[in-house]
């Protein structure tokens, strides 16, 4: 087992049989994470536990906060100090993180937040936080949110999350779920040389020339290294390019155009999807996270019965993969939107489809995911 392998190595290359929460830990460590703060909550505890073992071994720091708020703010602070920082929680704890996520977004502190979604109060499966991932904090901001559907993808997307956080200087959310977090599965960790890792972008300007928030439109500014004579103020209040608090409406407008624009105007670069059996499809299932698994089985069952159905898997849930969803909506005669909640993201798919084809909601909120038979049944009904 991986625990026996040298813990000092950041990248535990090889084939493992590992639980999803530990794969999240390994992804973070491989991506260069050097600070973690968290507060206990099931089903996310193995992430804290794993981090408390792995981080000290690679020279990082682990902190158990007195609550979720302390943890997320410690993560924002560590990020400003130069660390690659992460926190993890589960739905009820994710509520408390929102203030810190808002702050980290406003001051453009790159960090990764893992939400292992559960049903209210219990370890049952759910995707009900999908809207909170996007809209949980107050004020204008954008989120990048990735939805893994396997233990392998918990590793892969956690690495990806750290890279996106550095590229856009923004919090990035890994939308985990009870289902995949507590499940053990095959995990292949590549050689370090095959892992793409993006590190902190520092300014080449000198102290005095450098301005904390000066950046091109729709781009993130470069960081100033800590302790080298640069003066930085990181305030959640409206701030000008120097970082000074400024309530001028023009300053306010320019700042928020850039902070949101760096994500919304670079959507095509950020958004990733995967297509299965889509080339000749006249029906499409759209799913994300663990629901992709039974959805793919159901699509293959339907294909065996002669139904021309395909699957669009959303790797990026936020921002919305509008280009890809529009293409699908133009190609097929109907979309089935599959998710494990009362039907939240389906409305986004409906909005983006813009009437090109009807969108059928295939939703379930019973503490367990859809079975392939349930999705297959829904496909058959729409195909009729």
């Amino acid at each position, binding site marked *: *087992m991986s625990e*026996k392998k040298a813990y000092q190595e950041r990248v535990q290359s*090889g*084939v*493992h*049989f590992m639980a999803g929460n530990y794969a999240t830990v390994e992804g973070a460590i491989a991506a260069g994470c050097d600070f973690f703060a968290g507060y206990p909550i099931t089903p996310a505890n193995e992430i804290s536990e794993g981090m408390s073992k792995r981080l000290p071994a690679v020279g990082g720091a682990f902190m158990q906060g007195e609550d979720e708020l302390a943890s997320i703010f410690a993560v924002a602070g560590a990020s400003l100090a130069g660390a690659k920082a992460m926190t993890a929680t589960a739905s009820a704890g994710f509520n408390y993180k929102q203030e810190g996520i808002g702050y980290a977004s406003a001051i453009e502190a790159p960090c990764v937040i893992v939400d292992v979604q559960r049903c209210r109060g219990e370890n049952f499966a759910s995707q009900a936080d999908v809207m909170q991932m996007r809209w949980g904090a107050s004020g204008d901001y954008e989120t990048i949110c990735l939805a893994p559907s396997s233990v392998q993808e918990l590793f892969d997307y956690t690495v990806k999350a750290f890279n996106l956080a550095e590229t856009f200087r923004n919090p990035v959310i890994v939308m985990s779920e009870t*289902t995949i977090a*507590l*499940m*053990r*599965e*095959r995990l292949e960790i590549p050689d370090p040389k095959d892992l793409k890792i993006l590190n902190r972008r520092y300014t080449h300007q000198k102290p005095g020339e450098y301005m904390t928030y000066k950046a091109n439109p729709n781009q993130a500014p470069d960081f100033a290294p800590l302790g080298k004579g640069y003066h930085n103020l990181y305030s959640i209040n409206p701030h000008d390019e120097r970082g000074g608090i400024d309530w001028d409406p023009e300053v306010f407008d320019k700042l928020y155009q850039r902070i949101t624009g760096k994500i919304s105007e670079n959507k095509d670069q950020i958004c990733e999807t995967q297509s299965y059996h889509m080339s000749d499809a006249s029906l499409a299932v759209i799913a994300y996270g*663990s629901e992709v*698994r*039974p959805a*793919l*089985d159901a699509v293959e069952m339907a294909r065996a019965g002669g139904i021309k159905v395909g699957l669009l898997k959303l790797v990026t849930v936020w921002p919305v993969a509008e280009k890809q969803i529009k293409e699908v909506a133009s190609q097929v005669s109907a979309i089935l939107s599959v998710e494990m909640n009362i039907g939240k993201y389906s409305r986004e798919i409906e909005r983006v489809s813009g009437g090109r084809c009807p969108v059928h909601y295939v939703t379930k909120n019973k503490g367990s995911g859809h*079975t*392939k038979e349930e999705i297959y049944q829904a496909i058959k009904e729409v195909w009729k």
Partner: protein
Amino acid sequence: MKPYNIGLCGFGGQGIILTAVVLGTTVVTKGNRYAVQTQSYGSEARGGQCQAELIISDNPINATSSEQKDILIALFQSALDKYLPTLKEEGTLIIDPKLVKVPAGYEDRTIEVPATEMAVTLGNRLVANMILLGYMQQRFNLFSKEDLIEVVKESVPEKYINLNIKAIHEGIAYAKKES
């Protein structure tokens, strides 16, 4: 090979989940195949019903659970009563006869392995699960004996390695004797 579904059920503390994890680790890290393992258990620290499930396949696995088990291992009566319907028609039931009764109508496809009694004879009832793994190795050939022993060596505390390996051999010997 078609995906192979294995269910294990009993009560907390019998090593049900560990058994599934050792099995999964063996087929994935040594046998280079795919496996998915899930579990459910009560919130009690010990006792309470406990269930683990393992799917083994040559290819990546989508569905994480199956109601069509090829093998069901039951080490507690109420757990068996609950999970017996998940055994498929031609599936094999493995029970510990000291803990579980052969269900009516299942006589011809139930195997009795007195793993707990054998483990007590070896000096530690906790290795009953290793006896079962040894038995499964010999009977179903889903993984090799060498791979299983390798995984046990990597995952069991040093001072218990020999006892666990001995238990695996006991299970293998029991299966050989039976056939």
